[in-house]
């Protein structure tokens, strides 16, 4: 196992997994307690439009994805302030709009879009050093903002209406939170890909929720669970020559089922 770390690509993948788990565990905790999985799905899938745009213009597809997911997050937080009853329909449209646009851009692009699959399903083994710095920067942004607004985010996710009566700027705080979700999406694209990242964003937090008694604890447990799944997925995929993204996700789902069975069994025994 030690000699694996002689390869740069493996060391990069190892570091990227840990760094991505930090963003994923913290933001995934909010996604799970506030039950905004669908919104997060909309933000992440619309990023595919940016991937396509990146190919078309010949720039880094991740940069295009960043612009698209941030815009989607902005549009969705605006929709929320309008109390639009069709909110989830429009999020669904945004979701499909991004995907369709991506496919369209790629069809316009001459030549073969070789590593397109890696954006859809992830390929952590190809993450370059430069992208590790990007993930690190996003981690720092997320940790700083969450530390700064921890109590405010707690209030709006626990009881949004009450937070309004306190005079908190609830809409602005949600805007910030959705922006952080968009940034987390970018971090996770290389790890597990656009299609699968919603699972990695939510499963570790869903497992952590079985044990955590506070939001802070939920975040720490989620980060830990995410690290365990991504790193073991990494090794499994290397030794068994399986796709990394799928390995990580299947492992997470297995982890969730085991944890769920354990909790149900435990509660029954003490009930």
């Amino acid at each position, binding site marked *: 196992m030690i000699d694996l770390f002689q390869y740069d690509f493996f060391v990069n993948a190892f570091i990227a997994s840990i760094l991505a788990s930090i963003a994923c565990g913290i933001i995934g905790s909010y996604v799970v307690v506030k039950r905004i999985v669908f919104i997060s799905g909309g933000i992440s899938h619309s990023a595919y439009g940016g991937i396509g745009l990146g190919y078309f213009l010949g720039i880094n597809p991740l940069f295009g994805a960043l612009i698209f997911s941030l815009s989607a997050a902005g549009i969705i937080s605006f929709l929320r302030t309008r109390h639009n009853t069709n909110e989830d329909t429009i999020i669904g449209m945004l979701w499909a709009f991004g995907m369709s646009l991506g496919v369209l851009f790629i069809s316009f692009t001459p030549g073969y879009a070789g590593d397109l699959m890696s954006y859809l399903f992830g390929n952590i083994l190809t993450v370059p050093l430069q992208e590790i710095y990007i993930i690190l920067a996003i981690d720092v942004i997320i940790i700083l903002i969450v530390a700064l607004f921890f*109590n*405010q985010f707690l209030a709006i996710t*626990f009881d949004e*209406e*009450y937070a309004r009566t*306190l005079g908190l700027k609830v809409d602005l705080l949600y805007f910030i939170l959705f922006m952080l979700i968009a940034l987390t999406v970018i971090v996770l694209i290389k790890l597990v890909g656009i299609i699968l990242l919603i699972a990695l964003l939510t499963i570790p937090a869903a497992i952590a929720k079985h044990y955590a008694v*506070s939001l802070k604890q939920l975040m720490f447990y989620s980060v830990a669970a995410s690290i365990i799944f991504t790193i073991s997925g990494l090794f499994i995929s290397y030794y068994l020559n399986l796709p990394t993204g799928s390995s990580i996700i299947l492992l997470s789902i297995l982890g969730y089922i085991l944890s769920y069975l354990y909790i149900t069994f435990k509660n029954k025994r003490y009930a």
Partner: protein
Amino acid sequence: MSFYVELNNVSVKYGDSLILEDINLRVAENEFLGIIGPNGGGKTTLLKVLSGLIKPKSGSVTIGGKKIETQKSLVGYVPQFTSFNNDFPINVLEVVKMGRLGKMGNENDDQILKCLETMQILNLRDEQIGNLSGGQKQRVLIARALVGGPKILLLDEPTASIDSKTGKSVYELLNKLNETTTIILVSHDIGAISRHVKKIGCLNKKLVYHDTKEITKEMLESTYQCPVDLIAHGIPHRVLEHHHQSI
């Protein structure tokens, strides 16, 4: 400084439907006003107007003569305890602390503990919110509103879905708080309200309010728009006196 609450010609619309129509109300300091009315009659909406959550289509809402928007910190809002996720990982102390967010002296722990004690939930402070009974949750939400030091307490159905014994103890706590705080609560539980409040109003889009503690058959019938049998055991027009003696 005075903290009377005043609503002048307040109307609220959701889309095309009129929820509150031409509400006029003046609530004096340390008043205890109960508002009853049918479901969908606008009770919760009225509370949201009073807490500044909903801006009325027309009319004015003032506290001590100043616009509600600038006086939000004087108001403590107690929503129904079904308003949040029960499985949120958070304990009682954290929920109550929330009430001091955005207020001066955020770190005032003594006052928070005092509020927990007043509401008789000090022993539950480390308990997860989801593990509490309905009555305990209600106390937590009242404590959360109290730590902000409100002059006016607004409560939405404080005894809905809790048993009548627990409900009674919640009202007894409210009566104690009422010595220093104005309380306005809405409920469809006419019996419980009439035993504990000082004034009663009936709300069904329009507010019928006579600045008294009596509910008359006429008030109820105009509110519920159908004949109502008062649960007054032979004294159809005076709910209050009779029940008062039975406690």
